[in-house]
């Protein structure tokens, strides 16, 4: 078994908390973040979302940005989470080692674009926001705020984006290309995604119910999370505390349909299989699966079948989706769930899959529905996205 890449810091902001601690307590105290939308004016005012309860003005003052800044909401929450992660890792001199930033986003600065789209030609003071539409602008802003000058890039593979950012970061450390990488993702709520998922008819008008036979779809959420990955040399040299390790990762494409997953979850199966190969772990060694579990009819069936294929005759470990707490935070989902996976390892807990009542008729998979204490050595976390992009990460106790 390989040792994996050390995680030395984490930062997060989501609808269930503005810090790692707040998120953890919400998870173990069943405090959900899903509510009616307040920060965006939309005709779908009854839509339930996992919203960060801070206005843009509050975020601007928290980050102490100049009045002439052109930060999108995505960039602001991304910066907050990345700053927390860097501080948590005890990094004081960001360019001291070869340090990179790998971010992830699906819609980037769409929140500003959709707000000002038709006003740009009339209101010169808004023109500054045109440039922040670019997906790479979020990483750009974070790098600038951290003072990070080296390798900066962004991955956008829809809802699996942040998993791929973590995967790339781990590979960059493993291959010795970088000493330290800040990895994660950010996505703010936007009318664009609310309406997009609505037209696809996969938005639930109720609280989302992953792996329930009567699930009606997902709730959208907004969030950002970043983790600091460091080489073993730095960890040894600076005597750093290792929170957990990225021990496995796998990426595959379902190659089935632009937005739907294949019935047997080929992509998901291959991603998990590769992650086990990289980690050298056996499926039976996993103590908890943080499933993608978006609560859409298609995802949960496809993911469930893929898990059954991995485990065959063996018992499937305890699993749950944390999306009833946070909503589906798209490109940030795998990053916040990476934080939750590390917390599960640190605290030896399995989070409840809320809102579950009726097992799915297609198989005998039943998620963990209450908070459970158990020794957690290895957590598997899945993330799948449009375009058939399937990713699996495995986190292990250090």
């Amino acid at each position, binding site marked *: 078994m390989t040792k994996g890449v050390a995680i030395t810091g984490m930062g997060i902001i989501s609808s269930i908390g503005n810090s790692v601690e707040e998120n953890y307590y919400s998870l173990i105290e069943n405090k959900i973040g899903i509510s009616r939308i307040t920060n965006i004016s939309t*005709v*779908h005012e009854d839509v339930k979302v996992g919203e960060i309860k801070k206005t843009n003005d509050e975020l601007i003052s928290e980050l102490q940005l100049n009045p002439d800044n052109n930060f999108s909401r995505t960039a602001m929450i991304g910066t907050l989470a990345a700053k927390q992660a860097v501080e948590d890792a005890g990094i004081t001199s960001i360019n001291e080692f070869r340090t990179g*930033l790998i971010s992830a*986003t*699906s819609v980037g600065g*769409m929140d500003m*674009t*959709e707000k000002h*789209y*038709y006003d*740009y*030609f009339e209101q010169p003071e808004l*023109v500054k926001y*045109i*440039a922040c*539409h*670019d*997906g*790479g*602008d979020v*990483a*750009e802003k974070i*790098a*600038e705020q951290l003072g*990070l*000058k*080296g*390798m*900066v*890039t*962004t*991955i*956008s*593979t*829809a809802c699996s984006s942040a998993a791929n950012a973590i995967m*790339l970061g781990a590979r960059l450390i493993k*291959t010795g290309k970088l000493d330290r990488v800040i990895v994660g993702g950010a996505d703010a709520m936007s*009318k*664009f995604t609310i*309406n*997009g998922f609505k*037209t*696809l008819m996969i938005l639930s008008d109720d609280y989302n119910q992953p792996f329930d036979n009567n699930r009606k779809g997902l709730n959208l959420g907004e969030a950002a999370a970043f983790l600091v990955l460091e080489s073993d040399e730095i960890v040894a040299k600076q005597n750093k505390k290792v929170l957990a390790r990225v021990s496995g990762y796998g*990426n*595959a*494409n*379902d*190659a*089935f*349909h*632009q*937005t739907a997953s294949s019935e047997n979850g*080929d*992509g998901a199966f*291959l991603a998990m299989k590769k992650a086990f190969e990289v980690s050298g772990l056996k499926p039976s060694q996993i103590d908890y699966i943080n499933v993608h579990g978006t609560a859409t009819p298609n995802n949960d069936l496809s993911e469930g079948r893929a898990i059954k294929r991995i485990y065959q005759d063996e018992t499937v470990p305890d699993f749950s989706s944390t999306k009833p707490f946070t909503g589906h935070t798209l490109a940030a989902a795998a990053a916040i769930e990476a934080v939750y996976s590390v917390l599960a390892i640190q605290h030896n807990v399995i989070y409840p899959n809320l809102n579950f009542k009726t097992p799915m008729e297609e198989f005998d998979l039943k998620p963990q529905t209450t908070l459970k204490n158990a020794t957690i050595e290895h957590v598997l976390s899945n993330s799948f*996205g*449009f*375009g*058939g*992009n399937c990713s699996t990460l495995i986190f292990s106790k250090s």
Partner: protein
Amino acid sequence: MKKTYINGVGCISTQKTFDTVFLEEAAVNHDENVLAIIPPAYKEYISPAASRRMAKGVKNGIVASALAMKDANVEKVDAIITGTGLGCIEDSEKFLKSILDNKEEFLTPTSFIQSTHNTVGAQIALLQQCKGYNFTYVNGAVSFESALIDAKMQIEEEEAQSVLVGGVDENGEYTTALFKLNGRIKADNAAPYEVLTSTTSGAVYGEGANFFVLENERKENTYAELLDIAIVNTLKEDEIENEIKSFLKFNNLEISDVDALVLGFDGNAAFENYYRNLTENAFATIPVLYYKHLSGEYDTASAFAFWMASKILKTQEVPEIVKVNSAEKPAYKTILLYNQLNGKNHSFTLLLK
């Protein structure tokens, strides 16, 4: 550690770069500030029914990748890695406009589905039934180079033997209007538009799709070896030369070993010194080449330069139209590419014959 070879190329650009030898029909357009691609015969690659539903960038990506695979004589690849600045921006525009114009009612999902940045990579995977590794990078001017770094790592670590890697961007009408407004694109009615002698800010914009087959072995049809790529987010004007020297040194090379330097001159006057300092000083006696007067500027325009450098190494010919200075070399063995945008997102790429 396995080496990475460029074994197939496919280029759809604002010039005629398919069914041609090498830029012999290229022409500089001084009259327009937004250049459109010269479309290939899509129906030879995509059924008309499928083609109607597809975004322009998706179609160009599919054709460019098919050209690259045919050129490399491969039927399948192990991984598909794409870079794009703005993704399928036309569909993003379409969906956003219908949200705003119809007050969030009466929407259809097609343009939303196509608007995600990974659509091109996903559609290629779907067509080829490639279930392997599939990533899409979206980081402005280093989107393509991020994909290259990943592809090279895949081959070095023997995670893949063959990788299809590409850069693709399309022009969207409303977005180009916004870019004229914020100065990224040069003002309308300011022709003639020049690149090397420009004194104004902004650039002439373009679009394109450039795909490459990278493999872990040298073949008869190999264009070049991809020796190294580096991306650096922030560098000052006076740091470039040293950065290049240390990048070369890391690869056991010196400036005198470089047979051609390909620079991203785009006529954005305020940032041209990043390039000009090199041509006037450290690289004064080395052939310096440019390309954005042909391809236009866009986030993945540097993939056009990668195509051009690959062709030079294979044909050993440098078209007159891309020369910045009159320096020549008897043979072209080592080519360095350098690009940046507004002093950010610097990339350095080394190709070896």
